[in-house]
């Protein structure tokens, strides 16, 4: 709505009360903290018309008033400085004194709620030794708050998360991924459903950074500290650089533990297939980070499969919950929107990461399947009814009645039994071999974009 105000049109928005802080945070970032909005008690999704009418009826005077009177300015004050602010915090050995840095950060909403390592200038300086990039280099403008992601700010958050300098290039590469328009990081940040970035690491950097790619790698434990710290550091950046604070920039309806951070490397030593970054055009001895926005995961328990098709059928069963994104590609590609102009960037999505235990990959490889064969199998066998796809929303159609996207499939519209692949392309089944070698896989539902970036060799 700020875009139409910018064009000179007075505007009023209607939003659910639980989104009021999110709305305010959003318009703060957009530079119009006084943008008019009126709240109603509940989200309108799934509500009957009578119920929505009643909610609107109660606010109609305020809605009309918003078009005729400029609302008072509110919202957060901006700060812009040439040097990074530093603060002095008193610590002592009392329980309160030990927690004083955490309380200081919490009072400013600069944390994920878990105690952090104090980001002292010395610790930040040490972190910066993990990269050749200059401290004031800006990797991206992070939304929704339009924060400048400088190398130094990222380093401060990395210290807080418990990262070590040798892990810092992985975090920087993850932020390079978010900077790519096809990542659609804005929607990842501000969406109301439970999604989070997962960081997938390939190449020699995994060992150098101490990232576990075996048993328990995404869980708690000392052997997983690099995974935990890198994933957490990205979340802290999303909060403190992107201003995606819980309940404000981040209006997620309930959240998920995955939002604290997810980072894992591929078990390239045991996998029978080529590493994932090679699928994305990198060489085996290069290092790369892929970030995907996902919700889930769901664990696929696969102890009774006797062959590769049983396993693939089991994985494919995850695709059959309604509204899993199946068939959406028929309406054309999704668009990310970037920056203050809302410029659109079409991208292919979703990508569903499937964290495959090496044992499951071996079952397929022993049957003679390459990774691409397995992806092709899933693409061909995970199908949705065309009738159901057409029933969910109107098709974009040209004046002559032809579908704007995939007109070659329009002749199937009258066939009640016609099906189409749930996803547009085989590679959207992102098979990533990792973890201990046993009869499990984790299926993540991809929601928005994907991007891969090289990791700096320091």
């Amino acid at each position, binding site marked *: 709505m700020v875009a139409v105000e910018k064009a000179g049109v007075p505007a009023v928005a209607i939003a659910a009360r639980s989104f009021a802080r999110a709305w305010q945070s959003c318009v703060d970032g957009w530079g119009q903290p006084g943008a008019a909005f009126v709240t109603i008690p509940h989200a309108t999704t799934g509500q009957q018309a009578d119920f929505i009418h009643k909610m*609107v009826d109660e606010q109609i005077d305020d809605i009309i008033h918003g*078009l005729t009177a400029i609302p008072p300015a509110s919202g957060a004050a901006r700060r812009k400085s040439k040097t990074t602010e530093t603060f002095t915090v008193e610590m002592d050995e009392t329980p309160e004194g030990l927690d004083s840095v955490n309380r200081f950060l919490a009072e400013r909403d600069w944390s994920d709620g878990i105690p952090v390592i104090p980001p002292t200038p010395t610790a930040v300086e040490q972190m910066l030794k993990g990269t050749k990039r200059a401290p004031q280099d800006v990797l991206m403008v992070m939304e929704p708050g339009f924060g400048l992601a400088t190398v130094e700010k990222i380093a401060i958050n990395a210290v807080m998360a418990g990262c070590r300098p040798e892990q810092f290039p992985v975090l920087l590469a993850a932020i390079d991924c978010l900077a790519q328009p096809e990542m659609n990081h804005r929607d990842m940040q501000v969406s109301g459903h439970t999604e989070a970035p997962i960081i997938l690491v390939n190449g020699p950097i995994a060992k150098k950074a101490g990232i576990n790619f075996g048993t328990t790698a995404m869980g708690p434990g000392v052997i997983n500290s690099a995974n935990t710290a890198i994933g957490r550091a990205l979340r802290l950046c999303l909060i403190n650089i992107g201003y995606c604070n819980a309940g404000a920039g981040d209006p997620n309806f309930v959240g998920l533990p995955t939002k604290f951070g997810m980072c894992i490397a591929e078990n390239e030593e045991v996998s029978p297939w080529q590493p994932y970054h090679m699928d994305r055009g990198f060489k085996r001895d290069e290092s790369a980070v892929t970030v995907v926005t996902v919700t889930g995961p769901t664990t696929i328990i696969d102890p009774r499969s006797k062959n590769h098709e049983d396993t693939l059928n089991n994985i494919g069963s995850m695709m059959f919950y309604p509204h899993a994104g199946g068939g959406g590609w028929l309406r054309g590609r999704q668009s990310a929107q970037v920056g203050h102009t809302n410029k659109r960037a079409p991208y292919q999505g979703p990508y569903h990461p499937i964290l495959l235990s090496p044992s499951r990959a071996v079952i397929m490889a022993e049957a003679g399947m390459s990774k691409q064969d397995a992806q092709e199998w899933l693409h061909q066998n995970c199908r949705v009814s065309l009738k159901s796809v057409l029933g969910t929303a109107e098709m974009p159609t040209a004046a002559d009645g032809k579908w704007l996207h995939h007109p070659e499939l329009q002749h199937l519209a009258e066939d009640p039994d016609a099906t189409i692949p749930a996803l547009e392309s085989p590679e959207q089944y992102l098979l990533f071999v990792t973890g201990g070698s046993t009869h499990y896989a984790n299926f993540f539902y991809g929601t928005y974009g994907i991007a891969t970036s090289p990791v700096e060799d320091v």
Partner: protein
Amino acid sequence: MKLQIMSPAADRVDFKVPPAPRLAGLEGKTIGLYNNMTGGADIAVDRVAEHINKRFPGVKFERYGGDLRQGRPSLSRGNHIDDEEAARIATEVDAMIGATAH
């Protein structure tokens, strides 16, 4: 012990968008109704239109969001109005009321 710590909060790009001039009244105006195609948002803005129609006869409405006609702003679920669309909308309406499902 005194500990010096660095702020983890980023500087922000300092956009400033002043509020658009408000209307003196709604009589004879054209009001845009924008929904972002999330569930029920269309019902909410349509209800607003019903109220305005009763209070201000002669007000016209232009709907945005979910409009798939050729040449119309193809605002769709989750998409925000971009600058180009906003400029076009400004030629078509005097004010805008928008709703999302959330």
